[in-house]
């Protein structure tokens, strides 16, 4: 059934391939093909090496470095913003505390002012009251003194009139002495 091998196949057949194009033993051990494999392998390796070192690796390395840089920058920016937020919060709290302190200070100052005014007004009123009562005292004293004098006058006059009415002859000096003694009495 096997056809007569055609001359071309006969020619192609060598130490490693039989007349039907089948392998004789292991093709891996065929020395005839080794130079060809080594040559083309070296070509392929050099090509891959050049493709990688000239184009692929710088590109990927740059992309990875850029990404790393971007991530680092973003993290740093986030950290900075966080710091800023913290500062803003601290500033807000500080402002709040300041405002409270200021308010308390103003309240205290107002209280102190009012107290001072009140004290001054009280003192002034006290002083006025004291002055007025002293004036009144003095006037009462005067009135009392004048009343006393009037009483003496009236008493003397009355005594003179009485003495005269009774028919006596009264000299003014003795009547006065008698009234005075009596008033002291």
């Amino acid at each position: 059934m096997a056809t007569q091998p055609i001359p071309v196949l006969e020619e192609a057949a060598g130490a490693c391939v039989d007349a039907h194009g089948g392998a004789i033993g292991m093709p891996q051990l065929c020395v005839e093909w080794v130079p060809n494999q080594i040559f083309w392998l070296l070509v392929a390796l050099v090509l891959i090496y050049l493709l990688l070192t000239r184009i692929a690796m710088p590109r990927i390395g740059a992309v990875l470095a850029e990404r790393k840089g971007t991530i680092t920058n973003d993290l740093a920016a986030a950290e900075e913003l966080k710091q800023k937020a913290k500062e803003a919060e601290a500033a807000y709290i500080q402002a709040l505390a300041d405002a409270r302190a200021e308010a308390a200070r103003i309240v205290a100052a107002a209280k102190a002012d009012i107290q001072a005014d009140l004290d001054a007004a009280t003192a002034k009123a006290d002083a006025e009251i004291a002055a007025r009562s002293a004036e009144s005292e003095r006037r009462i004293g005067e009135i009392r003194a004048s009343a006393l004098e009037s009483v003496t006058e009236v008493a003397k006059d009355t005594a003179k009139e009485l003495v005269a009415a009774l028919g006596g002859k009264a000299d003014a000096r003795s009547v006065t002495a008698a009234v005075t003694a009596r008033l002291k009495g």
Partner: protein
Amino acid sequence: MAAEGGLPIHPMDQFIVKPLFGDGPVYWYTPTNVTLWLMLAVLAVGALMILGTRRRAIVPTRSQSIAEVLYGFVHNMVEEVAGHDGVKYFPYVLTLFLFILCANVLGLIPMSFTTTSHVAVTVVLALGVFLGVTLIGFARKGAGFLSMFWISSAPLALRPVLAIIEIISYFVRPVSHSIRLAGNLMAGHAVLKVFAGFASVALISPVAIGAMTAIYALELLVAFVQAYVFTILTCVYLKDAVGDAHH
């Protein structure tokens, strides 16, 4: 290999290197299916890392955030595993990671060619790391780089023995580093092919297709995990060259 009347399963045929144009012999410069899928991996890396980031947005789009996640993932890995001094070599580590990841995932497209399933490819990658680490180590530390083989925390009598073991393990690194990647992918793809062959038998095809689906999911995981493993081992080796303390 095709057995007459048997199942048409050729799990290893998917690894054959063919010229893209015609059927001539494969010279070192011949554009082959290896070339095609390597260049597709280059395009995939370009689409992921350059097209996706063309807007340079501060708030990334979906495609840009994929590029950024890949960048950040490998950058952190280099910084944490290899130390701060290792970051200088981050471009090369990223190149390795993205190339292996794209090649692995592209290899899962049906009918595709998985460049990283070939030891020739992974050995070049691993030897590049091995020679690079050794040169960086000697350049940075001079003869002091050799002190990583002399375990000063071990008893003196044991140190020569440990030194021999350490040296052997050091030189085995590129082998394990490369075979791990190529072996994982080759095995996974071969298994997928085997189950695909079984799927042509009506009786077991539901099972075979179910198994293929499951293995495909596993292979998708493997594609990522192996890219990750290769890269983190690169960082671990780099630490020996640039780190100050021995682990």
